[in-house]
């Protein structure tokens, strides 16, 4: 186990270097630069343009800029945003809890509904329930998030007035951010009704963000279950006269969980991508929207720093998922 862990950690090093190159190169491959956008319609004289490029350090040779960036990363300094002038790391940390909170809620919804739905569809293969679940999953998977989010807002917030339109908590409540997680902070604040308000603000965005992962998890669970249910040992278990629930729940599910777990791990990337749109619609102050705005403004330090942080988190989550395999299925024990 320890050896496996070290092996995987060693692999992270070249991956990390690769990510720094991609993060650094990607934004610079796009045409335009931050100084031009800063000037807008007014335009800049060539002298002023050169002066600003120099001030921001963009007139240095590209390899030099990369080395400066790496030197910064190694000392924990991701640089300052060109737009807000604030440290990239601070901005990331201020926004990241909001994205995590939303993503966690979404993944909980996706797993809690997706796995049972997938099992049901597999066990009742070919039935109306199976077709309804798979049909709904297909629709969910193909749903344009932007449209879906607005539709839910108009229905539940506009017409029915069951949920608030957007934001993280009612503006009535105002308390210091301790953890950055609104559910926790609202409890810590001790203000009456704050927690309920935070929950009600989470419902719609979580559903919207959960839609695609839910569909993927349900489909993956169904196909993994179908495969396992056809195995000899399941037939044996049934022949032994075990209760059907026990066969499915204990013998089949545990084996079917491995590909499902991988799928769930891979949804982290999907969630972060989906967060961009979900955060925009629901005015959710997270890193998705922050990154998109920064790309549009060619805010090099934010894009390269933000991408790096996100890649790092995806790598860590995937490593954790790999570790979990052994726990779920004893046949895979890392020695």
């Amino acid at each position, binding site marked *: 186990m320890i050896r496996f862990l070290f092996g995987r950690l060693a692999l992270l090093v070249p991956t990390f270097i690769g990510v720094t190159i991609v993060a650094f190169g990607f934004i610079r491959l796009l045409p*335009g630069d931050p100084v031009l956008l800063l000037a807008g319609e*007014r335009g800049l004289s060539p002298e002023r343009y050169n002066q600003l490029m120099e001030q921001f350090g963009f007139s240095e040779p590209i390899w030099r800029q990369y080395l400066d960036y790496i030197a910064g990363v190694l000392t924990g300094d991701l640089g300052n945003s060109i737009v807000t002038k604030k440290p990239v790391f601070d901005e990331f940390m201020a926004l990241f809890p909001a994205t995590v909170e939303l993503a966690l809620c979404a993944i909980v919804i996706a797993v809690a509904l997706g796995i049972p739905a997938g099992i049901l569809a597999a066990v009742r293969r070919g039935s109306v329930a199976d077709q309804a679940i798979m049909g709904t999953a297909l629709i969910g998977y193909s749903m344009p998030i932007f449209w879906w989010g607005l539709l839910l807002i108009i229905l539940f917030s506009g017409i029915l007035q069951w949920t608030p339109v957007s934001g993280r908590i009612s503006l009535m409540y105002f308390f210091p951010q301790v953890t950055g997680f609104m559910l926790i902070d609202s409890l810590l604040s001790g203000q009456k009704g704050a927690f309920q308000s935070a929950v009600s603000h989470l419902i719609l965005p979580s559903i919207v963000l959960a839609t695609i992962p839910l569909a993927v998890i349900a489909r993956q669970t169904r196909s993994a279950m179908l495969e396992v249910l056809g195995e000899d040992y399941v037939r044996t278990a049934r022949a032994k006269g075990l209760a059907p629930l026990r066969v499915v729940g204990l013998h089949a599910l545990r084996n079917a969980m491995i590909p499902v777990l991988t799928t769930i791990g891979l949804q982290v990337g999907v969630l972060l991508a989906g967060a961009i749109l979900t955060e925009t619609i629901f005015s959710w102050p997270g890193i998705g929207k922050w990154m998109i705005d920064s790309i549009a403004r060619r805010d090099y330090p934010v894009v390269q720093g933000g991408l790096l942080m996100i890649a790092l988190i995806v790598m860590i989550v995937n490593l954790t998922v790999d570790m979990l395999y052994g726990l779920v299925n004893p046949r895979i024990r890392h020695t």
Partner: protein
Amino acid sequence: MIIRRSMKAALLGVSLALFATGAASAKNLVYCSEGSPEGFDSALYTAGTTFDASSKPVFNRLVEFKRGTTEVLPGLAESWSVSEDGLEYTFNLRKGVKFHTTSFFTPTRDFNADDVIFSFERQRDPNHPWHAYTAGASWEYFNGMSMPDLIKEIVKVDDHTVKFVLNRPEAPMIANLAMDFASILSAEYADKLAADGKMDMMNQEPVGTGPFSFVGYQKDAVIRYQAFADYWGGKQPIDNLIFAITPDASVRLQKLKAGECHVMPYPAPADIADIKADSNLNLMEQEGLNVGYLAYNTQMAPFDNPKVRKALNMAINKQAILDAVFQGAGQAAKNPIPPTMWSYNDQIVDDPYDPDAAKKMLDEAGVSGLKMKVWAMPVQRPYNPNARRMAELIQADFAKVGVEVEIVSYEWGEYLKRSTEKDRDGAILLGWTGDNGDPDNFLAVLLGCDGVGGANRAQWCHQPFDDLIQKAKTISDKAERTKLYEEAQVVFKEQAPWATIAHSVVFMPMSAKVSGYVMDPLGGHWFDGVDITE
């Protein structure tokens, strides 16, 4: 880090307590703003969204725009005088003006000349300790308005008198000082931050003399302000001002309808009819101080011939563009400045839409089988909500007079850069929104000889025109300046370096409970004087 965080939490706790005082009866106005401020030191930035959240609620300037107009009124300066030669501007400062007392700063003195000197010198003097206090501070507006060349020195005459000495006469100087970058900060607060080694807080926790004091900002989510009880202009009718940052226009409208906010900017054009029909909402509208244009490259044949430009202008069906692109929320432009701006020459008759006459004029000019490019901006702007569509309409119009158009576009930064190049091919769609309501801000910036290779996208340097606007810059008498600008518009019309297309209308939906809101022709959003009935 932990200590810093808990200190911050404690400070915030104090401000929360202040904010919550009388919460039961407090009047809160919620504004669904369209984006996040880049920071709170307005001189560092150029975006209207940032100014709405910083300079407008929190700060004052020496002079202020009268709400709803571009007329300049006394602000922190009670009065001013200009020397005969137009080189010295002396300001008499208002006495007894208080800076905000907040959870992070308690002022010990009133506003005085030191604050004025500090606010400008930090932008002007590269050796000033505050010139580079935050990474990448470039003072873009100060530089963009040519202040470094213009200002020779700023002198403190006494505690309540400040003199600006200029290198050349500049009539728009007063209007410039009403702009956001000219906001007056507290020098005492700056000294305290410098002593505490926390200079970057100047951009995060602002202290000003304005109608609202800053309470707190949660990034990309909420900004909170409190009415300043000791405001020199009197306390505001509302108690708390809250910005709920809501980037999507449809969601802003849903929030407005649900009562989660009271005022919203920039509605989606498709929603206007819906808003008008809602009895709980009011829809204010105003002509924006802007112009959308098509600029020919007047240095390249055949566009170096005014007759060709004029003929092409006559081939454009502006009404069709207003209907299709502006959906009626605009008016055809005949001059390079909008009708709400002083010195607008209404005597000028626009070129008629007449494809036959246009074709004939092109033939007379010896132009046949002309192929040209029309550049379409990749972004939406108030002066041009859909440049691609506009370009397509122009393409069809020009085809009728035998001119073949190829539409091109580039990424926005690239577009802005390439369009300044003197050997640029074809005509470009672009526009302008005024900074300070002075005609010089349109005519000199966009059409003056100095702007060739820069903001003058027509690359048009026409001496008779340039003489007029340069002369107008040096005269302080408004009536005389008006005459010169009116004349300049006549020359512009004859020479036709642009096809002037449209001035757009800006809409502002708000709850019917809101009263006293006045729309700003310069596009800003102000909340002083605004009230709400619960």
